[in-house]
Every structure is written in structure tokens, then in C-alpha cells.
């Protein structure tokens, strides 16, 4: 089946493009949910993927805005006697075996989910407003790029753009030289995303409280990336 695809955990990944919304499969190939969000923790001052979140609460949180908030509240109200109902379910990143077109866990699905701890979420990082060095709003966070480093996936850069449609189609990440067709769609998406740029994580000050990223330098590099 999908055994021929590369394991993405050994190289850089874009969180929203390659990890969010993927199918979770257990060690026997059975399904147990989607990657509804990704848990981030600060380890040694750097954002690191520490878990995958799944379940309605995490999904509704990513809907964002009023709709997401109201639906999230209603979800909790369905059973107020249940503690931590509004906390999503969590799979520890240590239980992840490989990542290709799905997330394959190293364990059986029975009893693998735990309620999450209050941590940072990738789904809240993407969509944040981005301000330039002069305080001007220059766009939004479209995606976050992670690199493997001593066995962990660590945030290395942010993909920043104007938030136009089509960034999840992947054309803007492979760059202009790629053969990712059809050429007309690629041309349209690249034109829509001509301002999309990449910012190193150390140049970005992430303020979770007011959902804003403040840059210490102007982003210049296009996000073309030697993905395999």
C-alpha cells in the first residue's frame, strides 16, 4: 500500500502541509482519528512538536473565530459532568512510528489517547498576524517548518504570506522549478502567493496572547525548499 512512500520524519516538514489533517493509523493499520492539531512545547527555548491532538475539540478550535468558539462551548455543554471534556485527546510524539500520506503509530489504538495538557498548538500559530520590523502588518503565518534535530522535530522557520487561497495545495512550497503540475494551476497559485516568504524561527517573536508574530528582520527568501 503506502509502504513505498518516504518517511517524512527523517527530513524537514511543513506542519500544515504535511502533518495537519492526516489520518492516524495504529500499529495494525486501524484508524483512530485525524491529526486535528499538533501540540507544541518550548524545549530549550525552541518550539518542538511533542504530541498530536485529535478529537472534536481540537478540530473545532481550528475552525477559529466565533463559529469555532461557540461550537467548542456547545461540545463541552453536551456533558458538563465530564472533567476535561473541552481538552482534546493527545498522542505522544514518541508513539509515532512514521509519517507518509498518513501518520503511523507504533502502538495499538486501544487506550493510546490521553487528555492533553494545556500546551501550545500549531493550529493557533498558523493564521497569526505577522508584523514587520517596523510594526507594520505584513501578512499571516501560513505554515510552520520543522526540522529533525537530535530525535525531535524543532521549529526552524515560518512561511509568511497574504493568506490567499491555495497554500495547502503545496505549489508555493516546491518553488518555481518543480514539475508539480498542471502548469496552469501551478502558475495561478504561484501568482497568488508571489509575496509568500520564509522567516527563520530565531527572527520571529511569537506572542501567543495577542496572536501576533513580530519579526526582527524583513522576510525575503521565497519558500522553495529541497523537499524530496
Amino acid at each position, binding site marked *: 500500500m*503506502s509502504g513505498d512512500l518516504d518517511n517524512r520524519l527523517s527530513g524537514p516538514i511543513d506542519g500544515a502541509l504535511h502533518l495537519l489533517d492526516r489520518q492516524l493509523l495504529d500499529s495494525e493499520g486501524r484508524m483512530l482519528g485525524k491529526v486535528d492539531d499538533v501540540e507544541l512545547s518550548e524545549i530549550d527555548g525552541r518550539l518542538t512538536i511533542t504530541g498530536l491532538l485529535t478529537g472534536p475539540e481540537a478540530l473545532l478550535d481550528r475552525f477559529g473565530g466565533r463559529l469555532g468558539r461557540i461550537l467548542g462551548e456547545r461540545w463541552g455543554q453536551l456533558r458538563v459532568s465530564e472533567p476535561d471534556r473541552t481538552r482534546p485527546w493527545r498522542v505522544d510524539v514518541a508513539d509515532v512510528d512514521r509519517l507518509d500520506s498518513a501518520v503511523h503509530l507504533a502502538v495499538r489504538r486501544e487506550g493510546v489517547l490521553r487528555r492533553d495538557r494545556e500546551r501550545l498548538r500549531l493550529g493557533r500559530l498558523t493564521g497569526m498576524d505577522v508584523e514587520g520590523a517596523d510594526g507594520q502588518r505584513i501578512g499571516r503565518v501560513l505554515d510552520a517548518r520543522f526540522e529533525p534535530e537530535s530525535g525531535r522535530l524543532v521549529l526552524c522557520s515560518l512561511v509568511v504570506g497574504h493568506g490567499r487561497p491555495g497554500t495547502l495545495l503545496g505549489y508555493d512550497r516546491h518553488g518555481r522549478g518543480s514539475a508539480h503540475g498542471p502548469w496552469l494551476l501551478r502558475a495561478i497559485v504561484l501568482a497568488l502567493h508571489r509575496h509568500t516568504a520564509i522567516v527563520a524561527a530565531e527572527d520571529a517573536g511569537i506572542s501567543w496572547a495577542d496572536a501576533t508574530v513580530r519579526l526582527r528582520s524583513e522576510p525575503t527568501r521565497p519558500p522553495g525548499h529541497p523537499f524530496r
Partner: protein
Amino acid sequence: MKRVFAVALGILTAIGGFVDIGDLVTNAQVGARFGLSLVWVVLMGVLGICVFAEMSGRVAAVSGRATFDLVRERLGPRVGLLNLGASMLITFLTFVAEIGGVALSLQLVSSVHVLLIVPLVGLLVWLVLWRARFSLMENVLGLLGLALVVFAVAVWQLGPDWGALVHQAVTADKPADERWRTYAYYAVALFGAAMTPYEVFFFSSGGVEEHWGPEDLRTMRANVFIGFPLGGILSVAVAASAWLVLGPLEIGVDTLGQVALPVAAALGKVGLAVAIVGFVAATFGAACETGLSVGYSIAQYFGAQWGKYVRPPEAAVFHAILLLATLAATAFLMTAVDPIVVTEVSVVFSAVALPLTYFPILVVANDPDYMGEHGNGRLANALGMVYLVVIGVAAVAAIPLMIWTRMGQ
């Protein structure tokens, strides 16, 4: 030898599986009014479903992902949910139409009122989805659906002026008493009937569940590129027979009985009996496929366990959806709504919903992250882009034409 047999079986079931209530009713309606002047739309629709099914089958085989996995991954959870809602509304309508079609077919035999048959059909469909060995049912129904070849035999027996038929088909010669706008409306309806989205949901999910790999691509392509066009020929035969028998009498098609009338006229009772067997098999098979498609798609969006080979306790959400969808479809039909009208509406809205799933599949079929070396080639992309435009035009035109022509009156 076993492999040849498997390929042949796949092709045969694809022929029977291609024709459903939408194809039967729309082709008979179009045939009775426009003769073969809209055959070019059937050809376009058949080539379109081949392009669409081949891409989604290839994506399923190489990446192991079915349609609504990809819709959510490429469009995000919000747009993906809207997409799911719209696509499932249409697929549910088709499900209702198919169950109604089975009931109408059985009514032709039994003369029992259709509302008494509907609950029975609903129960049977659900039992098949819940308990039956589905691969067996799929093959039996697909093969019985081949009984619809009787329409081609009927055309031959009616001894038409072949030259005139071919001329009408090649020159798209609209009968003088019909307007161009109704012609355009029925063109969209025929296109929607040939390219119903559920066929792809079912096809790709089935491929994932049967663990297709890159080595199965040739078998998959044989099924698609031989089976669907042969099914398209059955559709054309339905239209031609309707034109030959109903056209001169100015009879429109409002019931399933009228769809079968040309066969009765050409071949008598035996022909009619064979045609009804074909109706029951084709619509029952399609009812199972649409029902499963609803369950597959919703479960895929939320990541819940799905699968017709998975025992119900292992895939509780999936089976709960199947049960609820079947109950809701049965209840809908029990309001005495005319299944033929539901069919007419469902094929037009199928055309509206097509781009929602076609577009993400086209993108992913090109994506090296999913496809490795099996991405779209030049031909697949050229056809893919042409059809993206065609599907877009049909989707935009469908509802205005529906209102303007008052559903083709």
C-alpha cells in the same frame, strides 16, 4: 488465468455498475425528446468519469488515501467540511433516488404500491451493508446488471434506419420542436448522470480497502477504460430505444415503466422481464454504493474507522452513519415524493457538486509528496485541465438552466 478472470470480472461489474437510476431515467428522457442528438454529452461524460476515476484510483493505489482524506488535507478543515456537507447532500439525494428506483422496479413486477415496497428495500439495503459479504453482492449485482444489454438488443430488433441515427448523433441534430435552452439543460443533466461523484468516492475507498498498490494500476485502468465506456454504450442504447419507440408517439418519460416500454415493444414480455432484472440489479447495486459512499466520506473526514470489510463493532461510527442514512432515505421516500423527480434533481446537482471533489483529486494526482513517480503524465494533465473547465462550466450553468427551463419543460 485467475488474474484474467479477475480482470474480466472487474470489467463486467464496471459495466453494470456504471448504469444507475440517474443514467436510466435521464437517457430515456433525453432519448424520447432529443433522440441521439445529445450522444456527444454521454461520450464526454464517460471520458470524464474515466479521467476522474483513473486519477482517484491511482491516488488510492499509490498513497493509500481515499477522496475525503484528500479533500480535508488539501482544502483544510473548514472548506473541507463545507465540501463534505454539499457532496453528502447530493450523494444522499442519489441514495434516495436509487432506493426509490429499486422500489419502482419491484412495483413493475408486483403492482404493489411503491410506498409498501420502499421500507422493504431500505431494510434489504441496510442488511446488505451491515451483514452481507459485500464482494459477493457486488459481483452478483454487477453481473445481473448486464441484463440491461437487452436495451441494445431491443434497438437492433427495432430495425432502425442506422444511417439516420448516426447522422443525428454526429451532427448533434436537435429535433426542431425543442428549444436550445432545454437542450442545454438536458446536456448538463446527462453529464451529471454519467459523472456522478459517488462513483469516485466508492471506487477510491474500495481501492484503499482492498489494499491496491502500484502493481494493481493496470487492472484498475482496464476496469475503468473498458468497463465504463461499455456501460456508456448501454446508456446510449437506452436513449436510442426510447427515441425509436417513444419519439414518434411524442411520449415523455415520467415513470420507470416508460423507460422499459421500448424493450417491451421490441421484445415482448421476456424482454421486459430481463430489463426489470437489470433495473433491480443496477439500482440495488447503486443504492449500496451510494449508501456506503455517505459512510465512507463522513468517516474519512473525521478519521473514524470505515470499511465494508471491517466488522461493525470495529467501525461503529461508520455503521451508525449507514444505518441513519438508510433510515433517513427511507423516511424521505415515505413522504410519497416521486423518485423520478428526485432522480432528475440529483443528476443536475451532481453536476453542481463535481468540481468540489474533482479539483483536489487533480491537484493530489500531481503531487510528488503523495504520488512519487506515479504522478499525472502529460495526457492525464491535459485531459484533467480540459475537464476541470468543462466541469466548472457545467456546475455554474446547472442551476440557472434548471430555473430557466423549469426543469426541462
